[in-house]
């Protein structure tokens, strides 16, 4: 790591901010074959716009969701449907935790 690298300001992409990705780009970022991504789409975990797979456009958040599914499978042996369920429950849990935190703050 050179000194110059340490000082320069790095700018990244914000995944949630409307970044549009093609199937090929999503495969590269997630390090997964297209077939696996298609399976995940078929499970309804990410929902690209566009009809045919070659026209698919994925929202940036898809990166996180696809990675979650891949990690669950690799680390915990969870299948795609199970990951979809876990993802939904986790999102609900996060919403509830946030709500709880806010209510807690206001009841002190």
């Amino acid at each position, binding site marked *: *790591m050179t000194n110059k690298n*340490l000082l320069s300001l*790095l700018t990244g992409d*914000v*995944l949630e901010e409307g970044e549009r990705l093609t199937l090929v780009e999503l495969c590269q970022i997630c390090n997964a074959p297209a077939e696996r991504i298609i399976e995940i789409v078929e499970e309804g975990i990410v929902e690209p716009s566009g009809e045919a797979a070659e026209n698919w456009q994925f929202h940036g958040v898809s990166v996180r969701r696809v990675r979650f599914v891949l990690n669950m499978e690799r680390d915990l042996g969870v299948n795609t449907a199970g990951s979809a369920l876990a993802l939904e429950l986790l999102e609900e849990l996060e919403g509830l935790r946030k709500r709880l935190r806010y209510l807690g703050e206001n009841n002190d």
Partner: protein
Amino acid sequence: MEFKDYYKIMGVERDASQDQIKRAYRKLARKYHPDISKEPDAEVRFKEVGEAYAVLKDPEKRVAYDQLGANWQGGQDFHPPPDWDQGFEFRGGDANHFDAEQFSDFFESLYGQAGASQGFEGQSRRGFNMRGEDSHAKIVIDLEDAYNGASRTITLKQTVLSAEGRPEIKERTLNVKIPKGIRQGQHIRLAKQGGAGMGQGGPGDLYLKIEFQPHALYHVEGGDVYLDLPVAPWEAVLGAKVKIPTPTGTIEMTIPENSSAGRKLRLKGRGIPGKQLGDFYVVIQIALPPADSDAAKAAYRNMEKALTFNPRAHLEG
């Protein structure tokens, strides 16, 4: 080097069956998986458990480990006895994602780098072209940073390849731009700033999760920012003009007549900026003046006389 008590880490007895070990691992892996867990040290624990399982699930490695004896305590200073692994041949287990470089020195001293990478990263054997691991880190910012944009310096502990191709833990400092309009829970992806790859593999990416420092005045939901505004009963009833703080400065706003507690007043577009501009909400809270003097008590009594008010009218059948 510290001795690691793999049985203790897994929470099993030394004579646990392979099935018991597997069950314990599955349970702990679910508990500490960094994608799921809320435990602050989840990532560290997950790796520790992964390392323990890598040894205990493999009968050969387990027997060799057991041979060190049962008298070692976790954390005790440890040096492997010479020729300790004589007569053992460590074959790689089934492919597993844990990369060798993430295991402890203790593990390496026993099973070596080769032993580790052999068993745990199937791809690395095939010509040593492997994309580096993605790294994840959290950045805590102030709400004001989301309004104005900012830069943050973060220090990451990462494994990098030394000149000899050996993975080493290095601290790395990065200066990262926090774009204006970022929201709580969003992720910034810095391409190729993750862990080093092998051969032609190229480095992984770095994912930074944004968290907001809890704010004394505001709370944030998505792009919307909320302020609880205490008002006096007469301000709520008669209406008032009050000065309120916002993250972009103090402004004057009108409290409409007959505002009840919990009423939300929206200041359009004064939330977190961005493509979808957030709003600023003022939530009315009615503060009761204390009756801590005779004059104050008299004022309350006068109010009682002057107003026919039954706050519990709706409770009566």
